[in-house]
């Protein structure tokens, strides 16, 4: 069965890149580019894993992560933070809030594939 992930990201070019590399590995990617209605999209698409940017318009990735974890249906869903914020305290905050993985931009395509594969296998 085809796995599919939800990519919450506001940069069109990054969405295009990730969609392209994951699709080649047989993983379907839904994209959502606004912080405000992210949780609704998670609910409606019910993905196998989520890739989550932090600096999003209207609502930050940290808050969205919190929303996801507080929803009983998604408390266990693998979430990888993919963000330009590389400071230790950002990483710590993400882990505290329940992120499954943390990756900083810019990334190597193979790292993303590797991490997502691991997340999907673990799930």
């Amino acid at each position, binding site marked *: 069965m085809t796995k599919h992930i939800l990519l919450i990201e506001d940069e069109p070019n990054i969405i295009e890149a990730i969609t392209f590399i994951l699709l080649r590995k047989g993983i379907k990617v839904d994209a959502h580019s606004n912080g405000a209605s992210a949780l609704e999209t998670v609910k409606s698409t019910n993905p196998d894993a989520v890739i989550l940017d932090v600096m999003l318009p209207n609502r930050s990735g940290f808050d969205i992560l919190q929303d996801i974890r507080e929803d009983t249906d998604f408390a266990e869903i693998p979430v990888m933070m993919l963000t*330009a914020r590389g400071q230790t305290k950002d990483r710590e905050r993400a882990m505290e809030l329940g992120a499954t993985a943390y990756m900083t931009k810019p990334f190597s395509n193979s790292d993303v594939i590797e991490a997502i594969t691991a997340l999907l296998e673990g799930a």
Partner: protein
Amino acid sequence: MFSTDILIGVSLIYVAFLFAVAFLAERANQRGRAKWLRSPLTYTLSLSVYCTAWTFYGAVGFAARSGLEFLTIYLGPTGVLIGWWWVLRRLVRIGRAERITSIADLISSRFGKSTSLGWIVTVLAVIGTTPYIALQLQSVTLSLAVFGQGDGAVNVNADATALWVAAGLAVFTIVFGTRNLDVNERHSGVVMAIAVEAVVKLLALLAVGVFVVWGLAGGIGPTLNLIDTSPIADWSVPTGRWIGLTFLSAAAFLCLPRMYQVLVVENSDERHLATAGWAFPFYLLLMSLFVVPIAVVGLKMMPAGANPDLFVLTLPLSAGQNELAVFAFLGGFSSATSMVIVAAIALSTMVSNHIVTPIWLRAAGEGATVSGDIRSVVILSRRLSIAAILGLGYVYYRLSGGGAALAAIGLISFAGVAQVLPVMLGGIFWRGATRIGAAAGLIAGFLVWAYTMFLPSVGTGMFLSDSILNNGLFGLHWLKPRALFGISDLDPVLHAVFWSLLINTLVFVIGSLLTNPTPLERMQAFQFITAFDSGASPRSWRSGAAESEDLLLMAQRILGATEAQKLFRRFAQDQGIEGYLPSPTPAFLDDLERALAGSVGSATAHAMVGQMVAGSAVTVEDLMAVADETAQIMEYSHQLETKSAELTSTATQLRDANEKLMQLSVQKDAFLSQISHELRTPMTSIRSFSEILQDKGLKAADRVKYATIISDETQRLTRLLDDLLDLSVLENGQVTLNIETGTLGQVLDQALAATDIKGQVTVLRPKSRESLSITTDLDRLAQVVINLITNAAKYCDAVKPQLKILARETDTGIEVDFIDNGSGVPRGKRDLIFEKFARISDEAKAGSAGLGLAICREIMTNLGGSIEYLPGQKGAAFRLRLPHQPTV
């Protein structure tokens, strides 16, 4: 006879020796090995600065002219030391307790630290001492001339000699008097040198005396016979003149600046006064022992017309005793130099503390207390003062032509400084003396002295014309300088002393009675007058008719009911009485006063208890003490208030500064995160697509597409870096503006040409205002316009986006509005849009990092204008303001 060169050589060696003595003493003092320096003997010898060249040479001349009258000059100080030792002791104790540095400081300090009084006394002292310094210069010059006469060769140039002596003394005084600043103004090195000079002058005079009596007159018997037959041995004593002169020299002994310096300032132990009390009169006795014999023998043996002031030198010389004559010369030299040095030190202290420093502090303003360089200013002002004082002495010497007899000049000085006496004594004994009274008295006495004594002494024609001298000021006979109020049969000296001191005292007393002292004056008066009361229990209570119940009522008011009753019960118990009402014994009253003093201060407590106890009325003094205490408390609490206000404001400032720092730090963090984000985002796309492009099996169309993305993102990155650099240059104000004059239309053309907005937005230009002239950096202004147009193109959400540009001229410059027909910026975000990275739209639009409006704002600020959001329009609206002329 004797070469002057040798004499000068001897003098120089002697001065070098004094330098060595002063230097060694100072070093010993610094190392703390100076017990012998602070012995009563040194103190006594240092008092001998009283005996100047006037005493050394002049006493003989005085005796030759007026017989035994010269003794008055010695009787005055002797009388003070023996009869008025308690005045001296009080002066010394006050001086030490209050750290008084000079006689001017004493007077100023006593009258509420008055600057003007310090100034008056200083000026008076300088004017009063100047003739005296001139006298010393004259005596050294004269004595040198005595040796020169026999040379037959070049005549000694008296004026040049005096100048050299003055300069030499100035150097010595500067070197040892101002080497360092001592808080107590003590100069151990100088004092030691003075003590050595005291011994030299005494031995020299004794040696000459012994030679005259035994070598010339042939023993004691023949000398006595000579005296008996001499014309000066008319033992009759004119009582008035004697009393007057004795009083004058006593006054001078107390008031001369140099005497105050050695008596009080250099005093290291009050008990030394006891030794000096007998030792100094003894020293004076030895000094005066041979005065009459030398005078008598000189009158008999020297040719008629010889100057009796120089007998001490001329007698040994005429007998061929050159070595003795040189010794005598050194004695006279010592007398002159010690006086000049101490006087110059004392006066320079006064001048710098009371004249230069206050002026400098006022001129330097508040910064002076902070900068801490006042020390060097003080030392410099002392040095200059010393030079100036000796310069004045030299000038007076030249003006007076060296004509007047030594003794006469000395008396003028004495009478001048004696003007301080009434104020000084009043200050330390009379509580009612006030600052205004003191100043008035001093000035009045000083003027009378100057008019009757000082100005006539300089010679007629100089200050006072003959007509004033003979007919009085304004032709009023009762104002004749030497016969005030028509009293003409008085001796001139006595006349001047009498009138000046009388008027001085009267004005002082009346002035004091008519004016009220300030609180600070009251406090100082209290300190000075009760110098001996402190520590001792001053007043004890007699058991009076006070009722214990009344006392309890009063105590309750001050201590509170519980505390007072507890106290009374304890007293009662101590007296073996049941209950809480002890009998009002003196011991109980004392205890009660002490207990109350803890709450209301001792003076108030004393006054309160006094009021309750019959038989002890509250005196004016008690009330004054209360007032002093209150003033002190008020002063203290005022200081506390000021301090606490200062603390509060400092704390607030610190808190504000801290908050600002925190805000800045938070802002900096946010800014860095933003930059990091804005840089990493395009980099992410570039890296990711580069890796994708490396795949071999990529379709040609995708390859082109992704390469284009990489190229776009690279440009975006470059633009971002350009914007950041631009912003940082603008914010730091490092931007160089290229000011030109052009038209608005020109700027709009330039901006539109640089933007690529075809079809995105229609720009409506201000046709009637295109020719509006603008003087500014046109390229920068165009940059702002480009930003605004681009923003409209990006964010205007109307179906047919339009951007309307309106322009107008105002009083201060021009205004250009940019209004689009979109939905505008939400109210809450209008302040935010000019901040860095404040992109507020929902979707990221490539190429915008949110720096555009921040850069616009910085540019407008740099151009001296402004940019603001214009509310109340239909769409997003911005207004640019520019001055007619750029402010930079």
